[in-house]
């Protein structure tokens, strides 16, 4: 991997020989809370709805005719425009990238609002999505990380074209990085090309104004419960989560290992073995640790027969407490570390995955070769650190969100 700064551009290059497609990701930091929930996602959609010289239909047709795959996504802390194309189409793909990022008209705002609302309504038909939406909205309440699709549905009608232009202005003036993975023939030529054509990608040394959030403020003691009633369901959807320190904290590698042991390693995690294999409570049960820039969320999830809600919640806490009281064996600890390392490799096999991961790491201020640093940090985690992380969770307030038919919500 190579990091090049040229004429104000930050470029990360991953040279992968003999790969037929190149991935280029343009990353932009999102530095401020959204004025309306979902406005950055709406902005991202509008970037593919026509430029000054090409209407949406022409743009889509030309991109697809050339098999240039474009995906523009807004997340809580960044916006990413990814282009994936055959190596020989490099310059053509980058011409489209430049046109999209510089010349979009945002004229189709009302239509995109209409489409977005219909898509959200369909998404919220899924019990898991509905429960997850209520859970995230609840645990981050009062903070922009609580901007979920249901909140977007409530606020999207307020968005005006000036709001979109304001977002665009902020994006253009934010911290940026271009991350490339592919069969790179000439590094100098490539960086010169970007310098000549993408001066709007010059990075700015901005600081995120999104507030840090370190704790979940429970309305109801140690574990607040949100109950969502939905009739005629065969399974309850259950989340329990804690707000925890994020990626730059000393706790990050410790929570990562703890998460792996509890419920993220695959078929051998403790939750999987105890709640699924031994008790038959679920087909899907897991833990997850989602690190955002200003906060992070550790959570348990299970989809279970509605009458098992209490048993499942008890199972979560039982496993967490067990780990807090008894550090994992050296064998289990080492297994978790190797699992995390293997997963890192597994999920960076394609150029698209690699460009995406390296670009984000750099934008988030984690530096270059963060994967190697992460593995080093993981390898320094001790069994007591893992118990410490579990104790940390137990000392904090949590939020439970249960979605089930009404008659099963008296737990």
């Amino acid at each position, binding site marked *: 991997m190579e990091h090049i700064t040229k004429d104000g551009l930050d470029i990360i290059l991953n040279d992968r020989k*003999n*790969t*037929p*497609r190149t991935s280029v990701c343009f990353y932009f930091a999102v530095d401020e809370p959204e004025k309306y929930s979902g406005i950055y996602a709406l902005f991202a959609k509008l970037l*593919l709805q026509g430029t000054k010289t090409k209407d*949406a*239909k022409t743009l*889509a*047709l030309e991109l*697809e*005719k*050339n*098999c240039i795959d474009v995906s523009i996504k807004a997340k809580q802390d960044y916006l990413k425009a990814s282009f994936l194309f*055959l190596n020989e189409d490099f310059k053509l793909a980058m011409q489209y990238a430049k046109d999209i990022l510089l010349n979009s008209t945002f004229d189709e705002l009302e*239509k995109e609002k*209409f*489409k977005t609302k*219909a*898509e959200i*309504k*369909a998404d*919220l*038909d*899924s*019990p898991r999505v509905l429960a997850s939406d209520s859970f995230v909205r609840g645990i981050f309440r009062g903070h922009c990380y609580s901007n979920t699709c249901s909140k977007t549905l409530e606020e999207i009608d307020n968005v005006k074209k000036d709001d979109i232009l304001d977002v665009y202005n902020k994006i253009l003036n934010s911290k940026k990085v271009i991350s490339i993975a592919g069969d790179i023939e000439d590094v100098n030529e490539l960086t010169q090309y970007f310098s000549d054509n993408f001066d709007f990608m010059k990075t700015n040394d901005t600081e995120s104004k999104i507030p840090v959030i370190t704790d979940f403020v429970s309305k109801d003691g140690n574990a607040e419960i949100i109950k969502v009633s*939905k009739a005629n*369901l*065969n*399974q309850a959807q259950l989340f329990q989560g804690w707000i925890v320190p994020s990626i730059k904290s000393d706790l990050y590698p410790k929570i990562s290992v703890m998460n792996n042991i509890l419920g993220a*390693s*695959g*078929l*051998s995690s403790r939750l999987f*073995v105890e709640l*699924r*294999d*031994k*008790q*038959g*409570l*679920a*087909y899907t049960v897991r833990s997850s640790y989602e690190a955002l820039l200003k906060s992070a969320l550790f959570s348990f999830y299970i*989809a*279970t*027969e509605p009458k098992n809600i209490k048993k499942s919640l008890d199972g979560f806490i039982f496993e967490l407490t067990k780990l807090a009281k008894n550090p994992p064996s050296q064998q*289990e600890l*080492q*297994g*978790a570390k*190797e*699992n*995390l*390392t*293997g*997963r890192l*490799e*597994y999920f960076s*096999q*394609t*150029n698209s995955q690699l460009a995406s991961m390296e670009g984000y790491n750099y934008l988030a201020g984690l530096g270059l070769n963060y994967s190697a640093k992460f593995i080093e940090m993981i390898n320094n985690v001790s069994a007591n650190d893992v118990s410490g992380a579990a104790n940390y969770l137990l000392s904090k307030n949590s939020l439970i969100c249960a979605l089930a038919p009404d008659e099963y919500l008296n737990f």
Partner: protein
Amino acid sequence: MPNYKEKQEINYPYLSKPVSVYTYPNGYRVVIAKKDSHMANISTWVKTGSINENEQNNGVSHFLEHLMFKGTTKYKAGVFDRTLESKGGIINAATWKDYTYYYVTIPKISFDIALHMHADMMVDPLIPEDEVGPSFVFGKEIPEQKRERYVVIEEIRMGKDNNWRKVYSALNDAMYEKHPYKREVIGTGEIIASIPRDEVMRYYETFYSPDNLTTVVVGDFEDDEILEKIEREFKFKDFSNIEKCKSDERIPEVIIKKPAYIEQKTNVNTGYLMLGFLCESAKNLKQTIALDVISIILGEGKSSRLNTRFIEGQKEPYVSQIETCHYQFKDGDNFFIEANFDSDKKELFIDELKDELCKLANISGDELKKAKKRAKVNFAQEAETVSDIADSIGYYMSVCDDLDPAQRYLLTLDEIDEKYLCEFAQKYLNPSVCSISVLLPEGDK
């Protein structure tokens, strides 16, 4: 020296070296594909799935897939998962209509242990009674020991809460008259709750014979080194004397004989629609590729016909998402259009969809050129990771019985012209031979 009977080399598109297919005297096949990667993949594909089931054992292929992970003579339940995941492996399995497969993707450095344990699992599963869990009457009894039986029942429950699954299941049932494809791969709660452990074992002994298995290895290896290890580890038992499970009679059904319309209602916000066709076997390469191409023209990307007509070309679209889907099967492919739509516009939507299908009588040269390039890129995409390559090879070996179609894919794609596509569409994707399944919000008329 390896003991295979026959070796075939296949020039697999987008791989730098030919893929080798080795056939052993007992019919067992090994495929080795080279890929320069830190990761390696081993998978074994069994030519069985719901295609070999009947009314009494529907779901047994999938249940067995779960139970294969429950220990062998050498390793107790859980050791396989724990050992390989603690070496960075991603392990799992899946069951579909024509095949069941088991895979490990793992850093190359740990490949030997992966091969050893994967082979052990494939040839010596114990299926212990206490891991299966006691049988019970579904819906009336709750067993004290909820083991793997109950896990699968939870998986069935999960499917029942999935709106697309509801629409697909109803459509799939309606599209076929008698063929075993009519049934759900996952089976029913009643069967899974009651099927005896010995029946599951008998199913294994019937269908997991060497001539029904293909092991695929993808990674940076020498063939002889891999073959030697496979021959050492895959010690097949002889099940020739057991009483075999009976499968339902299979008469391939191509083109729906009794087109049906199925409507269900539940507590959803939006309408769900699937429209389906039955086509020729996936072994008919030219026709399968024709479906790939038509699928791209109709439903892949914003500039596809369906997206343009129903979403991108509308000021206030009544369809929020629409796409096409092509499932390839041994006894005949499926082609679907699926969409979320404003349920008030149901009749209009169905009429317009049928109208769009009729328009397949005209396909322009530009459209075809664009779709062909996309089909090539899709194929290239399947050669990016060791697991994608293994999945693609495993599919061809299980559904088409041969890897040659992969080698001929791009050449055959080039042979397809507008006339062929239009004639194909008129015969197989004619609106008069489709079935339709919709799910609507409760309270809708």
